[in-house]
């Protein structure tokens, strides 16, 4: 009885071994951005993932590196950042290069405006402080490390400005640009200011 059981289990093991050797494992790569960020990286409100198409390569790199190094997406209240960080944690330098190339191949299409109730005229006044770095038409400025804002999903801009204001983003000691944003965002004063300024940005085009 014992003998036959042994013989049986041996046979199972060897069959298993052969089978395993014959089966190839499903390959995967790191080009998974569009699952969240939508078709051609145009952003997906459904999962609150912003538009990547048209994002400056240097800004994209900096953010991917920030996420990877736990400089962004660590505050428990930063819901979207927390969702993003693990997606970046395991990226190699080569993968980041590849993603940046890939994102660069997508056509820039400005996002549609979704927020309501803002006052663009007031927002224009508030935007003066932002323009210093992000440019008069919110087109961005690489030498100052300030990304374009025009054409970005407005719901994303609102969330990020709120996060800066509350210290959910930009609080990491090594996030120098984030620290600058945290100071600047106070000129918007409150949530109404944020909505107004984003309503104004919605009127700008790159």
């Amino acid at each position, binding site marked *: 009885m014992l003998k036959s059981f042994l013989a049986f289990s041996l046979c199972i093991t060897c069959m298993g071994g052969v089978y395993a050797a014959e089966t190839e*494992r499903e390959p995967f790569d790191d080009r998974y951005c569009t*699952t*969240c960020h939508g078709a051609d990286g145009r952003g997906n409100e459904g999962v609150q993932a912003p538009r990547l198409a048209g994002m400056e390569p240097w800004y994209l790199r900096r953010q991917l590196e920030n996420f990877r190094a736990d400089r962004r997406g660590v505050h428990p209240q930063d819901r979207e950042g927390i969702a993003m960080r693990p997606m970046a944690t395991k990226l190699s330098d080569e993968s980041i290069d590849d993603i940046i190339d890939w994102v660069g191949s997508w056509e820039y299409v400005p996002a549609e405006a979704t927020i309501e109730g803002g006052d663009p005229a007031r927002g224009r006044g508030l935007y003066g402080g932002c323009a210093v770095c992000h440019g008069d038409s919110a087109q961005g400025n690489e030498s100052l490390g300030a990304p374009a804002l025009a054409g970005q999903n407005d719901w994303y801009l609102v969330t990020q400005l709120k996060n800066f204001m509350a210290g959910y983003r930009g609080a990491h000691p090594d996030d120098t640009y984030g620290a600058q944003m945290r100071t600047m965002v106070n000129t918007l004063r409150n949530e109404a200011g944020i909505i107004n300024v984003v309503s104004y940005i919605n009127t700008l085009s790159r």
Partner: protein
Amino acid sequence: MSKQVTRREFLNLLSAAGGTAAALKAGSALGLLPHTAQAASMDLLAAGAANRKVAILGAGISGLTVAYELSKVGYECTILESSHRPGGRIFTVRHGDLIDEIGNRHYCEFDDEPHMYFNAGAARIPSTHRNLLAYCKELNIDLEIFINENKTSYVQDPALLGGKPIRNIDYTTHSRGFLAELLAKSLNAGEMDQPFTDQEAETLMGMVRSFGSLDEDDLYKGSFRAGYAAGGFLEHGVQKDIIAFRDLLQTQMGRQLLSANEGDTGPILLQAVGGMDKITEGFTKHVGHQIRYRSMVNSVEVKEDGVDISYDQDGSRHLLQADFCFNCIPSHLMTGISNNFPSQYVDALKYIRRGNAYKAAFQAKERFWEKDDIYGGISWMNNPSNQIWYPSSGIHKEKGILLAAYDFGDGSFHTAMTHEERIEAHLSDGEKIHPNYRNQVEKPITVAWHRMNHMLGCSARWQRNPSGWTHEEEELYRALQQPVNGRHYMIGDQVSMHSAWQESAVMSAQWAMTDMDRRLRA
């Protein structure tokens, strides 16, 4: 505490006028109960010369149902699936399989044996899910009983008896005993005569005594229902000690324990022999050649007389033109795909929230639970891992696969952890029930549905308010169920009022096909 049940409360109960439930009366509603109806059998018109090209977006079970049924009557179907595998949320994990969780991709290292699998998505089929079961029958899928409730499994809560695990049967026997004793007291308190006839009162008391295993004085003094402390076969059985009611009341878990085996998860439940994806396989045997894998839909444009779909495969963009399109891509992903849907349709897609479920599994080096009289079923823990499922299959084999954690309500706790942190959490939670757990299990897998590639959720959540569907929600739901231009249908359990069940996905597909068929006949 000594408040008696009032006569009025009894009267209300008897007439069912006090609650919201309408009383069932013989000859009225009773005669109308539709529960003998068979599964819907599709009676579709054969495809004509025109209008025969069908695009199916997503190889979830709803998409596969459409492909299977429409192919039978001559339609030419093409299925675009962004992942490397069919089945979507029907996901059985075996030796060597890729778990494509973004940020936590890993391969399953379970031993390569037929019973060593884990249903990381759908796992249970209620016997009333007759449309799904009808396909199982038609596609020759072997089914077996899924054991959900196991009275020998454990209940563990740090608040209960200092965290000592107790058997489910101890919890339920004693709780029922105490509840019955309370009820008997209030029934005996003299209020009975008027609302009840003698015979009704006797029946009721009989039910109460038997519910709680009360003695002749209507007191609960323990019961052999909880098993024996010793003996019971060749010697007299020795009754187990009672757990004091006050002790039982220290845990909130009764709510879960007393409802876990009701409704959709009430007996009888079934599962596919060898893994739930045998159902997917049943379909793909017929329509597998129609699936284009790693084909990610990029845009959907509904036209006057058809639907244009663009998709990416092998690094290039392709166009698929079809007369009809059936789409089971999760709503929260569809919002990120270019489309020309009407605004109310888009509003509906955006309205649906996504659930956040989490499951994990271990391979057990030996079936240690069987030595502890446990065969299948669930142990419940008041900790984030929440459940341990013992496999219903592979009984008495050497090893088995255990579900190590399952959170269907809000899996964000484990989702936020790294793979290693999750595993440690399940080990330390599980060893509160099985002291040697850590040494008995290996080869973990963890699956956070919120991060699964091409899915990013576990199921649609339409209702924002637990008290029911609002009028607005219902309107959005109806709008999403209707086709765009009579050409594009959203399908899947997301287009049902009962999401998170395969049956709902199948029924939504059948609804859409019937609607298309009706329009073609008109």
